[in-house]
């Protein structure tokens, strides 16, 4: 399993893995928003937590095909499915690798982009914490969506249609936590709910995703 994790990390970070693309996309989305809503600082400060959360969510969505689709194309997914470790743990490890190469960098980049959006001081801590604890849920939910569409040609658009509704609870609690933090309100409750969703997704979704992969490889 550790070997698999290292393999996925290496594939993602070396040439052609598209490691930086998600981050660049996140940057561009964040830069585009002020052009759309105007440069006025108060407005930007108010919408900054939501924009950063939606941007992180979309950046995470765009890199989902990396989890299974490439392995399915070159046939290594079949080998992984017949490997001695259970398919559920393969899914869990691959989703973890996806988080390490997408969710974690996004979390680290978000405070810098928040400066561009004029986020109020106390918001930085809560934004980082909510992203750090919420993006794993995005990776695991996304792994499930990627598993459903792995055998399909042009599955990308369909995958966004399947995955985005599943992202809604995570987004609501995550953005709400960051928003309350930025307004210097108590942000503990949404954070707890967010962590609950993350833990639930990590615990349950690998099983659903593995079931979907088994169907797709049949």
């Amino acid at each position, binding site marked *: 399993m550790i070997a698999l994790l290292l393999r996925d990390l290496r594939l993602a970070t070396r040439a052609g893995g598209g490691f930086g693309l998600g981050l660049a996309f996140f940057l561009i989305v964040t830069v585009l928003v002020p052009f759309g809503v105007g440069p006025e600082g108060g407005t930007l400060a108010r919408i900054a937590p939501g924009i950063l959360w939606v941007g992180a969510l979309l950046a995470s969505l765009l890199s989902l095909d990396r989890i299974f689709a490439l392995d399915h194309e070159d046939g290594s997914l079949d080998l992984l499915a017949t490997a001695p470790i259970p398919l559920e743990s393969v899914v869990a490890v691959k989703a973890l690798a996806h988080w390490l190469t997408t969710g974690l960098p996004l979390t680290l980049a978000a405070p810098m982009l928040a400066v561009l959006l004029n986020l109020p001081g106390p918001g930085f801590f809560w934004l980082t914490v909510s992203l750090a604890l919420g993006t794993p849920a995005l990776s695991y939910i996304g792994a*499930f969506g990627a598993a459903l569409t792995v055998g399909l040609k042009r599955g990308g658009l*369909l995958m966004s249609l*399947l995955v985005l509704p*599943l992202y*809604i*609870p995570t987004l*609501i*609690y995550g953005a709400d936590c960051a928003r309350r933090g930025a307004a210097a309100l108590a942000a503990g409750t949404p954070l707890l709910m967010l962590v609950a969703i993350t833990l639930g997704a990590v615990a349950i979704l690998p099983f659903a995703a593995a079931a979907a992969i088994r169907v*797709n490889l049949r």
Partner: protein
Amino acid sequence: MSIWEYANPRKFMQTSAWALPWVAGLAVVTLLTGLVWGFFFTVDDYRQGATVKILFVHVPAALMAVNSWLMMLVCSLIWLIRRHHVSALAAKAAAPVGVTMTLIALFTGAIWGQPMWGTWWAWDPRLTSFLILFLFYLGYIALWEAIEDPDTAADLTSVLCLVGSIFALLSRYAVNFWNQGLHQGASLSLAPGERMAMAFKLPLYVAMAGFVLLFVTLVLIRTRTEIRARRLRALEARGRMA
């Protein structure tokens, strides 16, 4: 005699062919009774005027929108556990009906909300969760359409339906947390409090029964169509083999 006998497509086709005219006839009668009664023979509300009558479409449609998803969930479970093809096809048949009911509920709600709340749309928890339910339906239908092999499609959509149900429920409570409501509470409930008058309740019950029967009729017709389409494909495949 057990309920699983109807999992046999032949038995299902026989029984549904017999039952369909009765269910359809009853649906027409109850729908007409409920709606005509509700629209023309109830008094106007003293604050809402005639707009209150949209209730006789809005509430039953909302009811069926949620229950249609529940039916799909049960059918998906039956397919995953016992692998009865009729069950998977019934889930497939129910989805477009459910999405239509969701849209009816959303649109009638908007038409009522414009004069009453002064807005077509508000990000109220109930409205929002219906919009989210609509998105879940869309994803489910799109996945059915995208996969060619019928058994693979049935498996994957069933898994999606199970996971989707969990997340739909989560979203329901998340939007409650997220925003305060504008929508009134449950239309029909056993709890004490301000209740609807009997004059509105009775035609509403009839209209709800009508919508349930309409839903059953449509799902039966669509399931029969799906079974026939499946048979046709099997015959074509056999013809190509020969």
